[in-house]
Protein backbone atom coordinates (compact mmCIF):
# COMPACT_ATOMS: atom_id res chain seq x y z
CA UNK A 1 0.00 0.00 0.00
CA UNK A 2 2.67 2.48 1.06
CA UNK A 3 6.28 1.69 0.29
CA UNK A 4 9.33 3.74 1.24
CA UNK A 5 12.34 2.92 -0.87
CA UNK A 6 15.69 4.28 0.37
CA UNK A 7 14.06 7.53 1.35
CA UNK A 8 16.26 10.29 2.73
CA UNK A 9 15.18 13.77 3.71
CA UNK A 10 17.69 16.51 4.31
CA UNK A 11 16.28 19.89 5.30
CA UNK A 12 17.81 23.08 4.01
CA UNK A 13 20.49 23.74 6.57
CA UNK A 14 21.69 20.19 6.47
CA UNK A 15 19.61 18.42 9.10
CA UNK A 16 19.14 14.83 8.04
CA UNK A 17 15.63 14.06 9.27
CA UNK A 18 15.18 10.72 7.54
CA UNK A 19 18.08 8.53 6.53
CA UNK A 20 17.74 5.76 3.95
CA UNK A 21 14.34 4.65 5.14
CA UNK A 22 12.84 1.43 3.83
CA UNK A 23 9.37 0.62 5.04
CA UNK A 24 6.46 -1.35 3.71
CA UNK A 25 3.04 -0.56 5.10
CA UNK A 26 0.45 -3.13 4.19
CA UNK A 27 -3.17 -2.50 3.27
CA UNK A 28 -5.54 -2.37 6.23
CA UNK A 29 -2.74 -2.08 8.73
CA UNK A 30 -2.43 0.51 11.51
CA UNK A 31 1.25 1.34 11.74
CA UNK A 32 2.48 3.56 14.55
CA UNK A 33 5.65 5.62 14.07
CA UNK A 34 7.26 6.41 17.38
CA UNK A 35 10.56 7.76 18.62
CA UNK A 36 12.14 10.63 20.50
CA UNK A 37 11.58 14.12 19.10
CA UNK A 38 13.69 14.75 16.05
CA UNK A 39 13.73 11.07 15.06
CA UNK A 40 12.02 11.85 11.76
CA UNK A 41 8.63 10.31 12.44
CA UNK A 42 6.58 13.34 11.47
CA UNK A 43 8.75 14.01 8.43
CA UNK A 44 8.20 10.41 7.37
CA UNK A 45 4.46 10.88 7.70
CA UNK A 46 4.44 14.18 5.85
CA UNK A 47 6.39 12.78 2.95
CA UNK A 48 3.50 10.41 2.24
CA UNK A 49 1.15 13.25 1.28
CA UNK A 50 4.03 15.39 0.06
CA UNK A 51 3.80 18.13 2.63
CA UNK A 52 7.52 17.35 2.61
CA UNK A 53 9.35 16.14 -0.47
CA UNK A 54 11.99 13.44 -0.08
CA UNK A 55 15.53 14.48 -0.96
CA UNK A 56 16.35 11.01 -2.23
CA UNK A 57 14.45 7.81 -2.78
CA UNK A 58 10.92 7.02 -3.82
CA UNK A 59 7.61 6.62 -2.05
CA UNK A 60 4.95 4.47 -3.66
CA UNK A 61 1.28 4.68 -2.77
CA UNK A 62 -0.77 1.87 -4.30
CA UNK A 63 2.17 1.12 -6.54
CA UNK A 64 2.37 4.66 -7.92
CA UNK A 65 5.41 6.85 -7.45
CA UNK A 66 3.96 9.79 -5.48
CA UNK A 67 6.29 12.31 -7.08
CA UNK A 68 4.56 11.59 -10.38
CA UNK A 69 1.03 12.19 -9.08
CA UNK A 70 -0.49 15.69 -8.84
CA UNK A 71 0.02 16.78 -5.27
CA UNK A 72 -3.54 18.05 -4.88
CA UNK A 73 -4.91 14.79 -6.26
CA UNK A 74 -2.72 12.76 -3.94
CA UNK A 75 -3.75 14.68 -0.84
CA UNK A 76 -7.44 14.53 -1.60
CA UNK A 77 -7.18 10.76 -1.61
CA UNK A 78 -5.39 10.57 1.71
CA UNK A 79 -7.11 11.43 4.98
CA UNK A 80 -5.12 13.71 7.27
CA UNK A 81 -5.54 14.39 10.99
CA UNK A 82 -3.18 16.70 12.90
CA UNK A 83 -2.53 17.34 16.55
CA UNK A 84 -3.93 20.87 16.59
CA UNK A 85 -7.06 19.62 14.84
CA UNK A 86 -7.08 22.50 12.34
CA UNK A 87 -10.83 22.70 11.81
CA UNK A 88 -11.89 25.79 9.89
CA UNK A 89 -13.48 27.99 12.58
CA UNK A 90 -15.67 29.88 10.13
CA UNK A 91 -17.16 26.71 8.64
CA UNK A 92 -20.02 24.83 10.23
CA UNK A 93 -19.33 21.27 11.38
CA UNK A 94 -21.13 19.92 8.34
CA UNK A 95 -18.93 21.93 5.97
CA UNK A 96 -15.81 20.97 7.87
CA UNK A 97 -16.58 17.27 7.54
CA UNK A 98 -17.70 17.70 3.94
CA UNK A 99 -14.64 19.72 2.97
CA UNK A 100 -12.72 17.16 0.93
CA UNK A 101 -15.86 15.78 -0.75
CA UNK A 102 -16.74 19.32 -1.79
CA UNK A 103 -13.21 19.87 -3.13
CA UNK A 104 -13.78 16.65 -5.08
CA UNK A 105 -17.05 18.19 -6.36
CA UNK A 106 -19.42 15.59 -4.95
CA UNK A 107 -23.06 16.57 -5.44
CA UNK A 108 -24.49 18.39 -2.41
CA UNK A 109 -26.96 15.67 -1.52
CA UNK A 110 -24.27 13.05 -1.40
CA UNK A 111 -22.12 15.24 0.86
CA UNK A 112 -25.04 15.86 3.23
CA UNK A 113 -25.81 12.17 3.46
CA UNK A 114 -22.17 11.35 4.10
CA UNK A 115 -21.90 13.98 6.85
CA UNK A 116 -24.95 12.55 8.62
CA UNK A 117 -23.65 9.03 8.29
CA UNK A 118 -20.28 9.95 9.79
CA UNK A 119 -21.71 11.94 12.69
CA UNK A 120 -24.03 9.07 13.54
CA UNK A 121 -21.13 6.65 13.37
CA UNK A 122 -19.45 8.36 16.34
CA UNK A 123 -22.71 8.89 18.18
CA UNK A 124 -23.04 12.64 17.54
CA UNK A 125 -26.59 13.62 16.61
CA UNK A 126 -26.48 15.43 13.23
CA UNK A 127 -29.53 17.50 14.22
CA UNK A 128 -27.57 18.87 17.15
CA UNK A 129 -24.06 19.18 15.74
CA UNK A 130 -24.16 19.62 11.96
CA UNK A 131 -24.93 23.33 12.11
CA UNK A 132 -22.64 24.25 14.95
CA UNK A 133 -19.26 25.91 14.65
CA UNK A 134 -16.04 24.25 15.84
CA UNK A 135 -15.61 26.71 18.71
CA UNK A 136 -18.94 25.59 20.15
CA UNK A 137 -17.51 22.10 20.67
CA UNK A 138 -15.18 20.68 23.29
CA UNK A 139 -11.62 19.68 22.36
CA UNK A 140 -12.51 15.99 22.26
CA UNK A 141 -15.53 16.63 20.08
CA UNK A 142 -13.45 18.80 17.77
CA UNK A 143 -10.91 16.08 17.25
CA UNK A 144 -13.71 13.57 16.58
CA UNK A 145 -14.78 15.92 13.80
CA UNK A 146 -11.14 16.08 12.70
CA UNK A 147 -11.10 12.30 12.34
CA UNK A 148 -14.46 12.30 10.53
CA UNK A 149 -13.16 14.95 8.14
CA UNK A 150 -10.30 12.64 7.27
CA UNK A 151 -12.70 9.77 6.65
CA UNK A 152 -15.24 11.78 4.66
CA UNK A 153 -14.09 11.14 1.11
CA UNK A 154 -13.51 7.48 1.89
CA UNK A 155 -9.75 7.47 1.41
CA UNK A 156 -7.98 4.16 1.78
CA UNK A 157 -5.10 5.77 3.60
CA UNK A 158 -5.26 8.00 6.65
CA UNK A 159 -2.34 9.87 8.17
CA UNK A 160 -2.59 10.85 11.82
CA UNK A 161 0.04 13.12 13.33
CA UNK A 162 -0.21 12.91 17.13
CA UNK A 163 -3.97 13.33 16.81
CA UNK A 164 -4.76 12.86 20.50
CA UNK A 165 -1.63 14.48 21.91
CA UNK A 166 -3.28 17.73 22.97
CA UNK A 167 -6.26 16.15 24.72
CA UNK A 168 -6.71 15.40 28.40
CA UNK A 169 -5.97 11.79 29.40
CA UNK A 170 -9.58 10.66 29.76
CA UNK A 171 -10.67 12.09 26.43
CA UNK A 172 -7.54 10.67 24.84
CA UNK A 173 -8.36 7.16 26.04
CA UNK A 174 -11.93 7.50 24.78
CA UNK A 175 -10.81 8.60 21.36
CA UNK A 176 -8.24 5.82 21.19
CA UNK A 177 -10.98 3.30 21.95
CA UNK A 178 -13.21 4.85 19.34
CA UNK A 179 -10.45 4.77 16.76
CA UNK A 180 -9.86 1.10 17.53
CA UNK A 181 -13.52 0.34 17.00
CA UNK A 182 -13.68 2.38 13.81
CA UNK A 183 -10.58 0.70 12.48
CA UNK A 184 -11.96 -2.78 13.23
CA UNK A 185 -14.90 -1.88 11.04
CA UNK A 186 -13.33 0.21 8.30
CA UNK A 187 -9.95 -1.49 7.87
CA UNK A 188 -8.20 1.61 6.60
CA UNK A 189 -4.48 1.79 6.13
CA UNK A 190 -3.47 4.14 8.91
CA UNK A 191 -0.08 5.70 9.60
CA UNK A 192 -0.11 7.10 13.12
CA UNK A 193 2.61 9.23 14.68
CA UNK A 194 2.88 9.48 18.46
CA UNK A 195 5.44 9.84 21.21
CA UNK A 196 3.27 8.00 23.73
CA UNK A 197 4.37 4.38 24.07
CA UNK A 198 1.13 3.28 25.73
CA UNK A 199 -0.79 4.69 22.81
CA UNK A 200 1.50 2.96 20.33
CA UNK A 201 1.21 -0.42 22.02
CA UNK A 202 -2.53 -0.04 22.36
CA UNK A 203 -3.36 1.01 18.82
CA UNK A 204 -0.66 -0.35 16.57
CA UNK A 205 -0.86 -3.51 14.53
CA UNK A 206 2.80 -2.76 14.08
CA UNK A 207 4.97 -0.26 15.88
CA UNK A 208 7.93 1.29 14.10
CA UNK A 209 10.50 2.66 16.51
CA UNK A 210 12.68 5.33 14.91
CA UNK A 211 15.87 7.02 15.95
CA UNK A 212 17.99 9.53 14.01
CA UNK A 213 15.91 9.05 10.89
CA UNK A 214 16.30 5.29 10.85
CA UNK A 215 14.06 2.41 11.81
CA UNK A 216 15.41 0.66 14.88
CA UNK A 217 12.71 -1.96 15.14
CA UNK A 218 9.39 -2.52 13.39
CA UNK A 219 7.30 -5.19 15.00
CA UNK A 220 4.01 -6.10 16.62
CA UNK A 221 3.48 -4.69 20.12
CA UNK A 222 3.83 -8.19 21.51
CA UNK A 223 7.15 -8.85 19.84
CA UNK A 224 8.45 -5.45 20.93
CA UNK A 225 7.69 -6.26 24.52
CA UNK A 226 9.09 -9.75 24.18
CA UNK A 227 12.14 -9.15 22.08
CA UNK A 228 13.30 -5.55 22.08
CA UNK A 229 15.98 -5.28 19.39
CA UNK A 230 18.50 -3.36 21.47
CA UNK A 231 19.06 -1.23 24.53
CA UNK A 232 17.58 1.82 22.89
CA UNK A 233 14.29 0.06 22.25
CA UNK A 234 14.33 -1.44 25.72
CA UNK A 235 14.88 1.95 27.23
CA UNK A 236 12.32 3.57 24.99
CA UNK A 237 9.64 1.04 25.74
CA UNK A 238 10.32 1.99 29.28
CA UNK A 239 12.16 0.42 32.11
CA UNK A 240 9.00 0.15 34.11
CA UNK A 241 7.32 -1.82 31.36
CA UNK A 242 10.02 -4.44 31.10
CA UNK A 243 12.31 -4.55 34.06
CA UNK A 244 12.03 -6.67 37.14
CA UNK A 245 11.36 -4.74 40.30
CA UNK A 246 13.28 -6.15 43.23
CA UNK A 247 10.67 -5.19 45.76
CA UNK A 248 7.63 -5.77 43.59
CA UNK A 249 5.53 -8.82 43.07
CA UNK A 250 6.94 -11.49 40.78
CA UNK A 251 5.01 -13.68 38.41
CA UNK A 252 5.55 -16.54 40.84
CA UNK A 253 3.44 -14.67 43.38
CA UNK A 254 0.48 -14.33 41.11
CA UNK A 255 0.70 -17.37 38.86
CA UNK A 256 -1.71 -20.25 38.97
CA UNK A 257 0.66 -23.06 39.94
CA UNK A 258 -1.35 -25.98 38.63
CA UNK A 259 -2.60 -25.14 35.17
CA UNK A 260 -4.41 -27.76 33.16
CA UNK A 261 -1.79 -29.37 30.94
CA UNK A 262 -1.81 -31.93 28.19
CA UNK A 263 0.88 -33.73 26.20
CA UNK A 264 1.22 -32.94 22.48
CA UNK A 265 0.21 -36.43 21.47
CA UNK A 266 -3.16 -36.23 23.22
CA UNK A 267 -6.06 -36.81 20.86
CA UNK A 268 -8.30 -33.85 20.10
CA UNK A 269 -11.50 -35.40 21.34
CA UNK A 270 -9.81 -36.25 24.58
CA UNK A 271 -8.41 -32.74 24.86
CA UNK A 272 -11.82 -31.18 24.33
CA UNK A 273 -13.29 -33.40 26.99
CA UNK A 274 -10.49 -32.44 29.38
CA UNK A 275 -11.26 -28.76 28.84
CA UNK A 276 -14.94 -29.29 29.48
CA UNK A 277 -14.27 -31.26 32.63
CA UNK A 278 -11.85 -28.67 34.03
CA UNK A 279 -13.92 -25.70 32.88
CA UNK A 280 -11.13 -24.06 30.93
CA UNK A 281 -10.86 -22.84 27.36
CA UNK A 282 -7.15 -23.30 26.90
CA UNK A 283 -4.72 -26.11 27.54
CA UNK A 284 -1.02 -25.75 28.23
CA UNK A 285 0.72 -28.22 25.98
CA UNK A 286 3.73 -29.69 27.77
CA UNK A 287 5.98 -32.46 26.56
CA UNK A 288 7.01 -35.48 28.55
CA UNK A 289 9.97 -33.65 30.11
CA UNK A 290 7.70 -30.93 31.48
CA UNK A 291 8.90 -28.47 28.82
CA UNK A 292 6.41 -25.93 27.57
CA UNK A 293 5.42 -26.48 23.94
CA UNK A 294 2.58 -24.08 23.38
CA UNK A 295 -1.08 -23.35 23.90
CA UNK A 296 -4.16 -25.05 22.48
CA UNK A 297 -7.38 -23.09 22.74
CA UNK A 298 -10.94 -24.33 22.39
CA UNK A 299 -11.71 -21.50 20.04
CA UNK A 300 -8.87 -22.44 17.74
CA UNK A 301 -9.92 -26.09 17.72
CA UNK A 302 -13.52 -25.22 16.99
CA UNK A 303 -12.56 -22.88 14.19
CA UNK A 304 -10.77 -25.66 12.33
CA UNK A 305 -12.67 -27.18 9.44
CA UNK A 306 -10.67 -30.37 9.31
CA UNK A 307 -10.18 -32.10 12.60
CA UNK A 308 -6.57 -33.07 13.03
CA UNK A 309 -5.76 -36.05 15.15
CA UNK A 310 -3.66 -34.68 17.98
CA UNK A 311 -2.95 -31.50 19.85
CA UNK A 312 0.46 -31.33 18.24
CA UNK A 313 -1.18 -30.06 15.05
CA UNK A 314 -3.22 -27.26 16.60
CA UNK A 315 -0.82 -26.08 19.24
CA UNK A 316 0.11 -22.42 19.02
CA UNK A 317 3.85 -22.25 19.53
CA UNK A 318 4.48 -18.55 18.99
CA UNK A 319 3.36 -17.53 22.47
CA UNK A 320 4.64 -14.75 24.69
CA UNK A 321 6.04 -16.19 27.91
CA UNK A 322 7.66 -14.77 31.01
CA UNK A 323 10.57 -16.12 33.00
CA UNK A 324 10.20 -17.23 36.53
CA UNK A 325 11.06 -14.36 38.81
CA UNK A 326 10.04 -11.60 36.38
CA UNK A 327 7.85 -8.82 37.71
CA UNK A 328 4.14 -9.51 37.79
CA UNK A 329 3.69 -6.18 36.05
CA UNK A 330 5.37 -7.54 32.96
CA UNK A 331 2.91 -10.41 32.71
CA UNK A 332 -0.04 -8.11 33.24
CA UNK A 333 1.25 -5.76 30.62
CA UNK A 334 1.21 -8.62 28.15
CA UNK A 335 -2.36 -9.40 29.16
CA UNK A 336 -3.67 -5.90 28.92
CA UNK A 337 -1.50 -4.17 26.39
CA UNK A 338 -0.56 -6.95 24.00
CA UNK A 339 -3.97 -8.48 24.68
CA UNK A 340 -2.90 -12.06 25.04
CA UNK A 341 -5.24 -14.32 26.94
CA UNK A 342 -2.80 -16.17 29.09
CA UNK A 343 0.89 -15.82 29.91
CA UNK A 344 2.82 -19.02 30.68
CA UNK A 345 5.59 -18.80 33.27
CA UNK A 346 8.65 -20.88 32.38
CA UNK A 347 12.07 -21.42 33.88
CA UNK A 348 15.47 -21.30 32.27
CA UNK A 349 15.13 -24.83 31.00
CA UNK A 350 11.80 -24.06 29.36
CA UNK A 351 9.73 -25.99 31.84
CA UNK A 352 6.24 -24.71 32.60
CA UNK A 353 5.80 -23.49 36.15
CA UNK A 354 2.41 -21.88 36.00
CA UNK A 355 0.32 -19.37 34.14
CA UNK A 356 -0.87 -15.83 34.65
CA UNK A 357 -4.38 -14.94 33.50
CA UNK A 358 -6.71 -12.01 34.07
CA UNK A 359 -8.21 -14.11 36.81
CA UNK A 360 -4.83 -13.95 38.56
CA UNK A 361 -5.11 -10.18 38.76
CA UNK A 362 -8.61 -10.42 40.15
CA UNK A 363 -7.34 -12.81 42.75
CA UNK A 364 -4.40 -10.61 43.63
CA UNK A 365 -6.71 -7.64 44.03
CA UNK A 366 -9.04 -9.67 46.20
CA UNK A 367 -6.22 -10.73 48.43
CA UNK A 368 -4.79 -7.27 48.65
CA UNK A 369 -8.06 -5.52 49.34
CA UNK A 370 -10.27 -7.87 51.30
CA UNK A 371 -8.27 -10.87 52.38
CA UNK A 372 -5.06 -9.34 53.67
CA UNK A 373 -4.61 -11.95 56.37
CA UNK A 374 -6.03 -14.82 54.30
CA UNK A 375 -3.87 -17.69 53.23
CA UNK A 376 -2.70 -17.04 49.72
CA UNK A 377 -1.69 -20.66 49.44
CA UNK A 378 -5.24 -21.94 49.52
CA UNK A 379 -6.34 -19.38 47.00
CA UNK A 380 -3.52 -20.14 44.62
CA UNK A 381 -4.07 -23.84 44.58
CA UNK A 382 -6.55 -25.95 42.71
CA UNK A 383 -7.44 -22.89 40.65
CA UNK A 384 -8.20 -23.74 37.07
CA UNK A 385 -6.70 -21.70 34.28
CA UNK A 386 -10.01 -20.43 33.00
CA UNK A 387 -8.28 -18.09 30.65
CA UNK A 388 -11.27 -15.82 30.69
CA UNK A 389 -9.45 -12.95 29.13
CA UNK A 390 -10.04 -13.87 25.49
CA UNK A 391 -12.26 -10.95 24.57
CA UNK A 392 -15.18 -12.72 22.86
CA UNK A 393 -14.80 -15.66 25.19
CA UNK A 394 -17.14 -18.49 24.50
CA UNK A 395 -19.42 -19.10 27.43
CA UNK A 396 -16.70 -20.83 29.32
CA UNK A 397 -17.77 -21.11 32.89
CA UNK A 398 -15.38 -19.39 35.20
CA UNK A 399 -13.92 -21.45 37.91
CA UNK A 400 -16.50 -21.69 40.69
CA UNK A 401 -13.78 -20.64 43.09
CA UNK A 402 -13.47 -17.28 41.30
CA UNK A 403 -13.26 -14.58 43.95
CA UNK A 404 -16.01 -11.98 44.16
CA UNK A 405 -13.85 -9.45 42.35
CA UNK A 406 -14.56 -11.24 39.10
CA UNK A 407 -15.24 -8.18 36.89
CA UNK A 408 -11.56 -7.97 36.10
CA UNK A 409 -12.38 -8.36 32.44
CA UNK A 410 -14.19 -5.06 31.89
CA UNK A 411 -11.87 -3.26 34.26
CA UNK A 412 -9.03 -4.07 31.96
CA UNK A 413 -10.51 -2.37 28.91
Amino acid at each position, binding site marked *: MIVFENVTKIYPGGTKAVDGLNLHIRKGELVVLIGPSGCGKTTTLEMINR*LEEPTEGTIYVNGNDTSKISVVELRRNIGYVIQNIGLLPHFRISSNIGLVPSLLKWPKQRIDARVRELLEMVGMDPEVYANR*YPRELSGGQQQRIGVLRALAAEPEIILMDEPFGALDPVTRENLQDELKKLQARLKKTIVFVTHDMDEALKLGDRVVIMKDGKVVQADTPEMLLRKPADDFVRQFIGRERLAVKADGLTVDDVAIKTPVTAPPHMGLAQATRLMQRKHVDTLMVVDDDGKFVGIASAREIEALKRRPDSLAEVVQKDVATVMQGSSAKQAFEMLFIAKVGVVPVIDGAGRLHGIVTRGSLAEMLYQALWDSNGDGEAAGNSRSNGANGQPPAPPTPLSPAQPPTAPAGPASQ
Partner: protein
Amino acid sequence: MSLFTQFWQYVSTHPDQILTAIREHILLLVAVPVGLAILVAVPLGILCTRYRVLESLLLGAAGVMQTIPSLALLSFLVMSGLGIGFRPAIVAIFLYAILPILRNTYTGIKSVDPSIKKAAKGMGMTDMQCLMLVELPMAVPVILAGIRTSATMSIGTATLAAFVGGGGLGNLIVTGLRMLRDHIILAGALPAALMAITLDALLSRLEKALTPRGLRLGK
Protein backbone atom coordinates in the same frame (compact mmCIF):
# COMPACT_ATOMS: atom_id res chain seq x y z
CA MET B 1 -23.20 87.54 20.56
CA SER B 2 -21.96 84.27 21.79
CA LEU B 3 -19.87 81.99 19.61
CA PHE B 4 -22.65 79.47 19.41
CA THR B 5 -25.25 82.01 18.16
CA GLN B 6 -22.79 83.30 15.59
CA PHE B 7 -22.10 79.73 14.49
CA TRP B 8 -25.77 78.92 14.23
CA GLN B 9 -26.44 82.08 12.26
CA TYR B 10 -23.65 81.29 9.85
CA VAL B 11 -24.84 77.74 9.35
CA SER B 12 -28.43 78.76 8.71
CA THR B 13 -27.44 81.52 6.28
CA HIS B 14 -24.90 79.38 4.37
CA PRO B 15 -26.46 75.92 4.22
CA ASP B 16 -25.49 75.28 0.57
CA GLN B 17 -21.88 76.17 1.17
CA ILE B 18 -21.63 73.82 4.17
CA LEU B 19 -23.46 70.94 2.50
CA THR B 20 -21.25 71.20 -0.57
CA ALA B 21 -18.18 71.19 1.66
CA ILE B 22 -19.42 68.08 3.47
CA ARG B 23 -20.25 66.34 0.19
CA GLU B 24 -16.85 67.12 -1.28
CA HIS B 25 -15.18 66.03 1.89
CA ILE B 26 -16.91 62.66 2.11
CA LEU B 27 -17.10 61.70 -1.53
CA LEU B 28 -14.07 63.24 -3.14
CA LEU B 29 -11.60 63.37 -0.29
CA VAL B 30 -12.49 60.20 1.64
CA ALA B 31 -14.57 57.75 -0.38
CA VAL B 32 -12.59 58.00 -3.61
CA PRO B 33 -9.03 57.80 -2.22
CA VAL B 34 -9.87 55.18 0.43
CA GLY B 35 -11.81 53.13 -2.13
CA LEU B 36 -8.80 53.23 -4.44
CA ALA B 37 -6.52 52.36 -1.53
CA ILE B 38 -8.62 49.26 -0.75
CA LEU B 39 -8.47 48.15 -4.38
CA VAL B 40 -4.70 48.52 -4.42
CA ALA B 41 -3.66 47.62 -0.87
CA VAL B 42 -5.64 44.41 -0.32
CA PRO B 43 -4.18 42.62 -3.37
CA LEU B 44 -0.73 44.00 -2.56
CA GLY B 45 -1.09 42.77 1.02
CA ILE B 46 -1.96 39.30 -0.27
CA LEU B 47 1.05 39.37 -2.60
CA CYS B 48 3.25 40.30 0.33
CA THR B 49 2.23 37.09 2.10
CA ARG B 50 3.18 35.07 -0.97
CA TYR B 51 6.49 36.62 -1.99
CA ARG B 52 9.26 37.40 0.46
CA VAL B 53 10.75 40.10 -1.77
CA LEU B 54 7.56 42.14 -1.80
CA GLU B 55 7.13 41.71 1.91
CA SER B 56 10.02 43.96 2.90
CA LEU B 57 9.83 46.16 -0.20
CA LEU B 58 6.17 47.17 -0.10
CA LEU B 59 5.67 47.23 3.65
CA GLY B 60 8.87 49.26 3.96
CA ALA B 61 7.88 51.74 1.27
CA ALA B 62 4.40 52.21 2.72
CA GLY B 63 5.92 52.77 6.13
CA VAL B 64 8.25 55.47 4.85
CA MET B 65 5.35 57.16 3.05
CA GLN B 66 3.47 57.36 6.32
CA THR B 67 6.26 59.30 8.00
CA ILE B 68 6.20 62.20 5.52
CA PRO B 69 4.22 65.11 7.02
CA SER B 70 0.96 65.51 5.17
CA LEU B 71 1.41 69.18 4.32
CA ALA B 72 4.86 68.41 2.93
CA LEU B 73 3.52 65.55 0.86
CA LEU B 74 0.77 67.78 -0.53
CA SER B 75 3.31 70.39 -1.53
CA PHE B 76 5.52 67.79 -3.23
CA LEU B 77 2.54 66.56 -5.20
CA VAL B 78 1.59 70.06 -6.27
CA MET B 79 5.16 70.69 -7.45
CA SER B 80 5.38 67.34 -9.14
CA GLY B 81 2.99 68.52 -11.82
CA LEU B 82 -0.38 67.58 -10.44
CA GLY B 83 -1.06 71.27 -9.98
CA ILE B 84 -3.53 72.54 -7.40
CA GLY B 85 -7.11 71.43 -6.76
CA PHE B 86 -8.60 68.06 -5.95
CA ARG B 87 -6.02 65.94 -7.73
CA PRO B 88 -3.00 66.32 -5.41
CA ALA B 89 -5.34 66.03 -2.42
CA ILE B 90 -6.86 62.77 -3.61
CA VAL B 91 -3.44 61.33 -4.41
CA ALA B 92 -2.03 62.30 -1.01
CA ILE B 93 -4.95 60.84 0.94
CA PHE B 94 -4.79 57.71 -1.20
CA LEU B 95 -1.10 57.27 -0.39
CA TYR B 96 -1.75 57.71 3.33
CA ALA B 97 -4.66 55.27 3.30
CA ILE B 98 -2.58 52.50 1.78
CA LEU B 99 -0.39 51.57 4.75
CA PRO B 100 -3.01 50.61 7.37
CA ILE B 101 -4.90 48.47 4.85
CA LEU B 102 -1.76 46.90 3.39
CA ARG B 103 -0.29 46.12 6.79
CA ASN B 104 -3.54 44.73 8.20
CA THR B 105 -4.18 42.54 5.16
CA TYR B 106 -0.69 41.15 5.48
CA THR B 107 -0.88 40.62 9.25
CA GLY B 108 -4.42 39.25 9.07
CA ILE B 109 -3.39 36.54 6.63
CA LYS B 110 -0.08 35.83 8.29
CA SER B 111 -1.70 35.39 11.68
CA VAL B 112 -4.09 32.64 10.55
CA ASP B 113 -3.28 29.64 12.76
CA PRO B 114 -0.56 27.67 10.91
CA SER B 115 -2.16 24.38 11.87
CA ILE B 116 -5.33 25.42 10.07
CA LYS B 117 -3.33 26.29 6.96
CA LYS B 118 -1.47 23.00 7.23
CA ALA B 119 -4.70 21.04 7.54
CA ALA B 120 -6.18 22.89 4.58
CA LYS B 121 -3.12 22.18 2.48
CA GLY B 122 -2.91 18.58 3.64
CA MET B 123 -6.47 17.95 2.59
CA GLY B 124 -5.67 18.97 -0.94
CA MET B 125 -6.59 22.63 -1.26
CA THR B 126 -4.80 24.54 -3.97
CA ASP B 127 -3.06 27.75 -2.88
CA MET B 128 -5.92 29.76 -4.39
CA GLN B 129 -8.54 27.73 -2.53
CA CYS B 130 -6.60 28.07 0.68
CA LEU B 131 -6.53 31.87 0.19
CA MET B 132 -10.18 32.27 -0.79
CA LEU B 133 -11.76 29.70 1.54
CA VAL B 134 -9.51 29.91 4.56
CA GLU B 135 -7.07 32.80 4.80
CA LEU B 136 -9.12 35.75 3.50
CA PRO B 137 -12.33 34.90 5.39
CA MET B 138 -10.32 34.46 8.57
CA ALA B 139 -8.45 37.73 7.99
CA VAL B 140 -11.62 39.74 7.32
CA PRO B 141 -11.90 41.32 10.78
CA VAL B 142 -8.28 42.48 10.70
CA ILE B 143 -8.53 43.82 7.14
CA LEU B 144 -11.69 45.74 8.02
CA ALA B 145 -10.00 47.24 11.05
CA GLY B 146 -7.29 48.52 8.71
CA ILE B 147 -9.87 50.08 6.42
CA ARG B 148 -11.53 51.74 9.41
CA THR B 149 -8.24 53.27 10.49
CA SER B 150 -7.56 54.57 6.97
CA ALA B 151 -11.02 56.02 6.54
CA THR B 152 -11.10 57.81 9.89
CA MET B 153 -7.61 59.13 9.39
CA SER B 154 -8.48 60.40 5.91
CA ILE B 155 -11.22 62.65 7.26
CA GLY B 156 -8.56 64.47 9.24
CA THR B 157 -5.99 64.59 6.46
CA ALA B 158 -8.65 65.81 4.04
CA THR B 159 -9.07 69.06 5.96
CA LEU B 160 -5.55 69.97 4.82
CA ALA B 161 -6.62 69.68 1.18
CA ALA B 162 -7.89 73.25 1.37
CA PHE B 163 -4.29 74.51 1.41
CA VAL B 164 -3.82 73.25 -2.14
CA GLY B 165 -7.30 74.22 -3.27
CA GLY B 166 -8.74 70.78 -2.73
CA GLY B 167 -12.05 71.92 -1.22
CA GLY B 168 -13.95 70.10 1.47
CA LEU B 169 -14.55 71.25 5.04
CA GLY B 170 -10.96 72.47 5.19
CA ASN B 171 -12.05 75.43 3.08
CA LEU B 172 -14.24 76.73 5.90
CA ILE B 173 -11.51 76.21 8.45
CA VAL B 174 -8.87 77.97 6.35
CA THR B 175 -11.25 80.83 5.56
CA GLY B 176 -12.14 81.21 9.22
CA LEU B 177 -8.50 81.23 10.20
CA ARG B 178 -7.64 83.93 7.66
CA MET B 179 -10.58 86.10 8.64
CA LEU B 180 -10.16 85.40 12.36
CA ARG B 181 -13.76 84.26 12.52
CA ASP B 182 -14.09 81.48 15.06
CA HIS B 183 -17.64 80.57 14.08
CA ILE B 184 -16.55 79.84 10.49
CA ILE B 185 -13.71 77.65 11.74
CA LEU B 186 -16.27 75.84 13.86
CA ALA B 187 -18.61 75.39 10.89
CA GLY B 188 -15.84 73.39 9.23
CA ALA B 189 -14.28 71.68 12.23
CA LEU B 190 -17.42 70.49 13.97
CA PRO B 191 -18.87 68.55 11.01
CA ALA B 192 -15.41 67.08 10.33
CA ALA B 193 -15.08 65.84 13.90
CA LEU B 194 -18.62 64.48 13.98
CA MET B 195 -18.04 62.79 10.64
CA ALA B 196 -14.92 61.05 11.92
CA ILE B 197 -16.68 59.78 15.04
CA THR B 198 -19.75 58.60 13.12
CA LEU B 199 -17.75 56.90 10.40
CA ASP B 200 -15.64 55.10 12.96
CA ALA B 201 -18.75 53.82 14.75
CA LEU B 202 -20.41 52.76 11.51
CA LEU B 203 -17.36 50.92 10.23
CA SER B 204 -16.89 49.23 13.56
CA ARG B 205 -20.43 47.85 13.30
CA LEU B 206 -19.81 46.80 9.72
CA GLU B 207 -16.68 45.04 10.89
CA LYS B 208 -18.68 43.00 13.39
CA ALA B 209 -21.41 42.24 10.87
CA LEU B 210 -18.97 41.04 8.25
CA THR B 211 -16.92 38.86 10.61
CA PRO B 212 -17.81 35.23 9.84
CA ARG B 213 -20.07 33.88 12.58
CA GLY B 214 -17.83 31.02 13.55
CA LEU B 215 -15.02 33.47 14.29
CA ARG B 216 -17.17 35.70 16.50
CA LEU B 217 -17.62 32.86 18.99
CA GLY B 218 -14.29 33.47 20.67
CA LYS B 219 -11.86 30.73 21.43
